[in-house]
């Protein structure tokens, strides 16, 4: 069973959402409904299932309903209709008390503008989730210190949030989310407010933490590069509708419609495609010049090894973690992969 299952969720903002719901279900567009009733459609029949331990990235432009969607998972926003199952419990059915317990122990959240408490020190901020659970100060400070360590903020624990830079503040946000040790982490445009250098730094930190902790992460972003980098699966939202769900490669190779195609048009393929996607398997590698080989890990992205290949004018040997040869790459595959028109065929032939 999936960790999180969102089933046919509709969200309509306005005075009488339940009256407008049938109109949305009958397929009237957002604009028509806004004009006729003054109601805004936030989410239109969204169904997603998110597996345990994966990073699911939800992407879309602003106003596409992605922040609304993530707030449904911990019910900061109530859906107009639909079910949200987390580990088999329907979040929609929880009463106030159960909901508080659920939020305390099942999931934590990281916010776009950090959402830190300005009147609390870094340590008090990180320990807040434990504080509301009723833990004693000594216990929660111990856990908080651990988490502050793990995000690399040791020495700042008695500072106040606005004494820190943006990147550091978001680390506090991340540490606060980690402190409650929940299985699920919701990240609402967590890195969007940071400048590019710090952002990629934070992305790396998140990936490192994730490879260790194996949490289920729901990540919201409007940045395609970020979603391709972090996501095991990506869902693309447009005007409250889920347009496409798939792996990063799926999204780039087979965009479901013009909207997605426009999104992925300018993406840097070398940064997204891994060696194993385009390699020629060992068993059909006859005829490849194996005299001059560069070793490449199967999960490496093209742009990580491309300069090496070009400089040495060599072919690549693709290996897995244990060092077993999985396949080969020549200039031909690389050039195909990086040329837009050939791309779809290249992938098809590999699969």
């Amino acid at each position: 069973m999936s960790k999180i299952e969102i089933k046919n969720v509709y969200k309509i903002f306005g005075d009488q959402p339940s009256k407008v719901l049938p109109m949305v279900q009958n397929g009237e567009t957002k604009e028509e409904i806004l004009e006729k009733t003054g109601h805004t459609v936030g989410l239109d029949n969204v169904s997603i299932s998110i597996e345990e331990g994966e990073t699911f990235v939800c992407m879309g432009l602003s106003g596409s309903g992605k922040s609304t969607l993530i707030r449904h998972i911990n019910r900061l926003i109530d859906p107009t209709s639909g079910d949200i199952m987390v580990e088999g419990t329907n979040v929609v059915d929880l009463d106030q008390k159960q909901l508080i317990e659920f939020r305390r122990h099942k999931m934590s959240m990281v916010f776009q503008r950090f959402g830190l408490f300005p009147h609390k020190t870094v340590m008090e901020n990180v320990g807040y989730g434990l504080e509301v659970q009723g833990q004693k100060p000594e216990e929660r400070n111990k856990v908080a210190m651990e988490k502050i360590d793990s995000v690399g903020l040791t020495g700042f624990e008695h500072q106040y949030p606005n004494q820190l830079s943006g990147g550091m503040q978001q680390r506090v946000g991340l540490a606060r989310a980690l402190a409650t040790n929940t299985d699920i982490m919701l990240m609402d445009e967590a890195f969007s407010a940071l400048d590019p250098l710090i952002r990629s730094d934070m992305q790396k930190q998140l990936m490192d933490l994730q490879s260790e902790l194996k949490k289920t992460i729901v990540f919201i972003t409007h940045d395609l590069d970020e979603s391709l980098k972090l996501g095991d699966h990506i869902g693309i939202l447009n005007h409250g509708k889920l347009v496409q769900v798939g792996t990063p490669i799926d999204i780039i190779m087979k965009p479901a419609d013009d909207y997605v195609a426009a999104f992925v048009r300018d993406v840097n393929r070398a940064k997204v495609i891994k060696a194993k996607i385009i390699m020629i398997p060992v068993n059909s590698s006859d005829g490849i010049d194996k005299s001059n080989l560069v070793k490449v890990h199967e999960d490496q992205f093209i742009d990580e090894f491309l300069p090496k290949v070009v400089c040495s004018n060599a072919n690549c040997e693709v290996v897995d973690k244990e060092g077993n040869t999985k396949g080969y790459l020549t200039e031909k595959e690389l050039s195909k992969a990086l040329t837009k028109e050939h791309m779809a065929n290249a992938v098809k032939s590999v699969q």
Partner: protein
Amino acid sequence: MKKYKIYLKSFIYSVICIFVIIISYRSARPRYKPEHYTDIFKDFSWLVDWPKWLDFPLMQPLNSGFDWLIVNYGMFFEGINNFLLGLYTTMRNSIVDLPWPIVIAIVILITYFASGRKTQTTVLVAFCTFFLGFLSPRYWDKCIMTTCIVVIGMLLCIVIGIPMGIAMARNKKVRNALLPILDLMQTIPSFCYLIPGILLFGLGAVPAIIAIFVYAVPPLIRLTDLGIRLVDKEVIEASEAFGASKKQTLWGVQIPLALPNIMQGINQCTMMSLAMVVIASMIGTRGIGDEVLLGLQQLNVGMATEAGIAIVLLAIIFDRITQSYGEKIQERTQPKKELKL
């Protein structure tokens, strides 16, 4: 949907209007009325001046209502009166009995710790306190009386006003119900409630305290409400997302972050209390205000000015203490940006 509501409202207003006209007509004295009501539609001379038969009888029911209140709930008001008066007399007597240097020392200590050990503020307040006695020896005791009234009025405002402000910020219905009442409290001339105050509580300090409450509590309620509503939405969301109950969010996040605004409200409240206490001297409240009144009555400009200066000094003392305490809190909740690397 909305149009229908507008029609309904206009309909209700017109019904009320007709109802009021009928009541006014029926309760008007016969000599003001035309012989038969159909005459109104024959002779239109009543359109020139406001007709005497169109006079809504609000005065009598209010008076009888007030009498009924005194007769039936007199005990209740007496209870309030005794409580406040007891509080006031104990407080006044204990301070008046203290030697004046000790009073000044206490004021200095309060200022020093409330302002977070700021010498500048402390010196200013000490100077003002000292100068009160200098102005005229009579002023010392009178200023203490005024201070006691203001402090009790303020406490009443804080005890009632802040919870009301919180309720207002959390519930839209409460806000909609309270806002017109606050408007009323702020606009209705103070004499309109000073006089019923005398009837209910007698002459002296208690009606002044009640008047202070009516006059000074609206800004405190408004600023508390505003302060809580201005707390960043994302911060509240963060608190909720980690499973804080409403109570935990209120006490742990909303109130601490609203404190600078609430302190500003308390400061406003103090200033308005002082203004009111002077007006209250006209209903026989003892204090520095009656010196102003005396000066006015005797056309003694010097006397009124002297008392006026005393009131200003008193205001400075109150303002500095509450203001600097507010600043101290603000520094704690929103520390200045200084990056230590």
